[in-house]
C-alpha cells in the first residue's frame, strides 16, 4: 500500500467520526434551541417522565443495592490488609454517591431507556409516523425529542439520589449482617463522612448522563435506516454510544469537580 493509500485508510474513518460528532452536535443544538421555544407538550413530557424515571426505579434500585453490598465486602477485605476495616461505611457512602451511583445508574438507564427511545422513534420513522407529524404541522424535535430529553435530564438525578440511598443501605445491610458492624455506628460514620457536595456532584453527573441517554436514543431513532435492520442498528448504536459517552463524561466531570 502506498503512503497516500495508508493515509487515506486512516483519514476516512477519522473524517467519518468527525462528521458523526458534527451531526450529533447539530442535533443537540436543535434540541436545546427547541427547549425554550413554545409550544411545549406537557402530556408527552409527563409520559416520558413516568417511562424514564418511575419505571427505571426497580432496575436502578436493584443495581445499587447489590453494588453497595459488594462494595462493603471489597472495602472490608482490602482494608483488612492495613487494619482499616472501620472505613467501610464512609468509603461505601462516598463511592456510591460520587461514582458508582451515577455511573451504574446512568449505564442501567442507558440500557433500558436509550434502547427503548431509539426503537420507538426508529419504528415511527420507518412507518412514516414522523412524516405524518410534519404534515400535521408538528415539529418532531419539539414533540418527540424535547419531552424525552427534558424528562431524562430531570429524572436521572433523582434516580441517582434514590440509588445512592439504596446502595448505602446495601452496604449497611452487609456491614451489620456479614461484617459484624454495629448498626448505629455504621449509620453515624456514614452521616459524618458524607458531605453535601458528594451527593450533589453525583446528581449533577446524573443530569448530564440523563441528557446523553435521551439525546443518543432520539438521535439514532431519528436517523435510523429502513426496515427491521435499521431499527435494530439504531437501537444498538444508541446504547453503545450512550454508554461510551457516559463513561467519557464521567471522567471529564470528575476531573472538573474533584481535581481543582
Amino acid at each position: 500500500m502506498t503512503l497516500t493509500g495508508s493515509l487515506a485508510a486512516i483519514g476516512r474513518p477519522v473524517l467519518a467520526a468527525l462528521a458523526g460528532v458534527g451531526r450529533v452536535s447539530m442535533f443537540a443544538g436543535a434540541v436545546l434551541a427547541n427547549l425554550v421555544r413554545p409550544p411545549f407538550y406537557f402530556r408527552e413530557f409527563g409520559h416520558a417522565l413516568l417511562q424514564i424515571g418511575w419505571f427505571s426505579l426497580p432496575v436502578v434500585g436493584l443495581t445499587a443495592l447489590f453494588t453497595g453490598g459488594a462494595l462493603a465486602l471489597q472495602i472490608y477485605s482490602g482494608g483488612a490488609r492495613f487494619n482499616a476495616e472501620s472505613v467501610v461505611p464512609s468509603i461505601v457512602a462516598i463511592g456510591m454517591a460520587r461514582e458508582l451511583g451515577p455511573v451504574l445508574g446512568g449505564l442501567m438507564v442507558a440500557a433500558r431507556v436509550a434502547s427503548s427511545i431509539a426503537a420507538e422513534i426508529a419504528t415511527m420513522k420507518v412507518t412514516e409516523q414522523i412524516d405524518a407529524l410534519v404534515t400535521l404541522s408538528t415539529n418532531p424535535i419539539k414533540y418527540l425529542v424535547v419531552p424525552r430529553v427534558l424528562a431524562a435530564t430531570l429524572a436521572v438525578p433523582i434516580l441517582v439520589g434514590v440509588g445512592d440511598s439504596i446502595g448505602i443501605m446495601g452496604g449497611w445491610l452487609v456491614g451489620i449482617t456479614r461484617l459484624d458492624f454495629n448498626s448505629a455506628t455504621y449509620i453515624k460514620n456514614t452521616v459524618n463522612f458524607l458531605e453535601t457536595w458528594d451527593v450533589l456532584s453525583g446528581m449533577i453527573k446524573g443530569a448530564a448522563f440523563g441528557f446523553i441517554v435521551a439525546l443518543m436514543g432520539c438521535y439514532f431513532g431519528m436517523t435510523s435506516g429502513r426496515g427491521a435492520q435499521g431499527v435494530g442498528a439504531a437501537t444498538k448504536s444508541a446504547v453503545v454510544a450512550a454508554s461510551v459517552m457516559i463513561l467519557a463524561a464521567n471522567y471529564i466531570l470528575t476531573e472538573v469537580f474533584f481535581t481543582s
Partner: protein
Amino acid sequence: MIELRGVQKTFGANQVLRGVNLILPRGQSMVVIGGSGTGKSVLLKSILGLVRPDAGTITLDGQNVAKAERDAFLARFGMLFQGGALFDSLTVWENVAFRLMRGAQALPPDQARAIALEKLRRVGLTPAVADQFPAELSGGMQKRVGLARAIAAEPEIIFFDEPTTGLDPIMSGVINALIREIVVEMGVTAMTITHDMSSVRAIADRVAMLHAGVIQWTGPVAEMDTAPDPYLQQFIHGRAEGPIESVR
C-alpha cells in the same frame, strides 16, 4: 393549482426524478401511476417538503413552496399515508383530532373529539372505535382512520399515497369509493399515487404516468385507454412484453 417544473432528485447514485413537469389544476383529482420504485412517493413528498428536490421548482398557486411559511402551507394539506402512519400511542379519536388540538387555533378536547367522531362516521366507522388504539384495528379500518385524519381539518388539497395497498379487493373498492365521494363532496384538489388500476378508474379526473424519472404521459382518465403511448398501454394492461423492462 400545483405546478412542478424540472423537478430532480437523486439518492446516492440513483437518480429518481430526472426533470418532472406536471400541473395539477385546482379542484381536480390527479392519479400518478407508475411501477414500483419509479419515484411516485418521492414526487409527492417533494411537494410537501418532506424531501428537498435537487433542482426544479414546485409552486402552489404561483408561490414557490420552498419559500412558503411552513405551518400555513401544510395547513392547506391533508395526507393519507400508505401504511396509515397512525400514532400508536394515541387513541383513534386523538389521531383524527391531532391537528385540531394543536396550533394557534387549537380546539378544546371535547370539541375536537366531536369533530373526530363526525369524521369517523363519514368514513364509515362507529364511535365505538374512537377510544381504541390503532393496533387494535384491521388494515382497512386503519386506512379509514387515516382518511378521517386527512380530512379532519378540511384541507384544500389531499394526497393519497397507495390508498389500497394491502387491502382485499372489496375493501379496496370501499376505500376508492370513499376517496371519490370525499374529493367530490369537499371540492378538494387531490393527488393519488397508486399502481392499482381499479383505483385509477374510480378516483381519477386526470392521470399522469411516471416512468424513468419523467412524466411519460398525462391526460384525462377518459383518454387513458385510447392513448397511443406504448409505455402507458403496457402498464395499464399489465403486459410483461413492451418497452418497460421487467425483471423475471
